[in-house]
């Protein structure tokens, strides 16, 4: 673990050079430990793949006070038997109708469409980061065989709930937006709802499994085509 300066009131804690389920779980655990220890002295935190940005109130503490305190609170994090994040199952309607890049992805991998769908569901993913847009969760890692670079020309509009693949990451677009990920299906479950508590079904460090559903179940669950 390495704690370095990011800005006037921000520290960056690095938990490793690369991401991995163990590193990601440490990030998640650190968020809880720091929240508990510092409360409102921390203005905000940004957990990501292998790091945690901590923003503190410089009128209530200072760098020479909080840095050693953080070190102390997180001491032993490397040794702690890390708790697995919660397992969240998300339904996906995989089809050529709901996944406009499914066929291209299958051709690219020299696989059948059903194989791509199968491989996407076979993996347990971890939420490595949330960003880009409210509720956009980066999940890793997809099977190497169905990994694919972003589209050379991003789409002007990707529908809400679209499930995409970019390199070895997969994600669900929480709202309609422009985007360049390869789309393979649609998820009827809202990924970001400001009026719900919690607003997102997942947080950084959680585990995700996708479960294929048919067209009718998709519509019954509130999905729209």
């Amino acid at each position: 673990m390495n704690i370095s300066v990011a800005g006037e009131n921000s520290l960056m804690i690095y938990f490793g050079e690369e991401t991995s389920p163990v590193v990601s779980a440490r990030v998640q655990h650190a968020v809880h430990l720091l929240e508990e220890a510092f409360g409102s002295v921390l203005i905000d935190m940004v957990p990501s793949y292998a790091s945690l940005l901590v923003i503190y109130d410089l009128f209530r503490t200072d760098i020479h006070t909080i840095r050693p305190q953080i070190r102390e609170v997180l001491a032993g994090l490397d040794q702690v038997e890390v708790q697995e994040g919660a397992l969240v199952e998300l339904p996906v309607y995989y089809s050529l109708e709901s996944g406009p890049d499914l066929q291209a992805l299958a051709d690219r991998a020299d696989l059948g469409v059903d194989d791509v769908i199968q491989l996407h569901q076979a993996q347990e993913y971890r939420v490595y980061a949330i960003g880009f847009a409210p509720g956009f969760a980066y999940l890793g890692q997809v099977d190497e065989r169905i990994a694919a670079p972003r589209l050379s020309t991003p789409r002007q509009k990707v529908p809400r709930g679209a499930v995409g693949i970019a390199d070895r990451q997969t994600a669900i677009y929480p709202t309609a937006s422009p985007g360049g990920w390869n789309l393979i299906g649609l998820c009827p479950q809202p990924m970001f709802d400001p009026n719900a508590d919690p607003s997102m079904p997942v947080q950084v460090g959680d585990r995700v499994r996708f479960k294929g559903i048919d067209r009718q179940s998709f519509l019954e669950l509130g999905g729209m085509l």
Partner: protein
Amino acid sequence: MTGVVNSTVNNAVSNSVFIVEQPGMLTLIQDEGRFGAHSLGLSTGGPADPLAFHWANRLCGNELGVSALEVSVGGLVLEANVTTRIAVCGAYMPLTINHREKSLWCSHHVKPGDRIELGFANEGVRAYFAVAGGFDIPTIFGSTSTVVRESMGGLNGGKLQSGDVLPCKEDLNGRCLMLPRGYRPLYGHHAMLRVIPGYQQHSFSRQQQRRFFSHEYFVSAYSDRMGCRLEGAAIRADIGGILSEGICYGAIQIPPDGQPIILMNDRQTIGGYPKLGSVLSLDVAQLAQLKPGSKVSFELITVEEAHNIHHLAASYFEQVKTEPC
């Protein structure tokens, strides 16, 4: 945390309002900002120039962080349907009430039927329009701040539109206050930005760091509330990209073309470009008042100096005495 919309609007006095006749180029409802929601991917928003925002609220006798309007460039026309006080602080936009010229950095009485116009800025970019008691806007994730990219905050997640109605409170007995002239900020065409080294600083060679700190950069016309883009000597990092990580206010991001971007209020929460360090927030506010084509240069300070500068600035703000006007 939840974003459940928390309405504080008092319907009983909802006829105490301002009506937007012309919204101007870009007018946004802002409070202090949205904090504690970074982990959901939400940015902070908030006033791009907090000092001018705080003065506008203070001159109305408000808590410093209550909802006000951030008027970029100018062109706002409002009609009052309430008796209250207003103040405009920040960029020098000609202010008139019923076509009579009025001072910025000073609160003024308004009454129903008054027409308040803000012209286009001569100096600076952003001005803050505050009203006694603040605008009564529902909060989302604890804040009214508008982040257009996220459709978050404000009246409906966007900038003000003609016909929008801005609820507030009646204020019959408040005194009007002014900030004495000598204390009003000046908005020029140049700023020296103080930098706290950090992040991937060590991924930039000493030569590249010298290059960055010894050159002047121009503010690009493609700047917005997400970030201020600069044009000038290209800076190369020894690394292409990094594993995406949290971006703090003022972070100096160096994309592959080498032209620095200073990240501001509406920045994305995470990103994968290398960063040289971060600009002192008080100087980011200065930057937010610079028109395209203005020049900036950088100087290094330590994080300890940054803390001291903040404490001094805060006590200075408290010590400055307003005067009746």
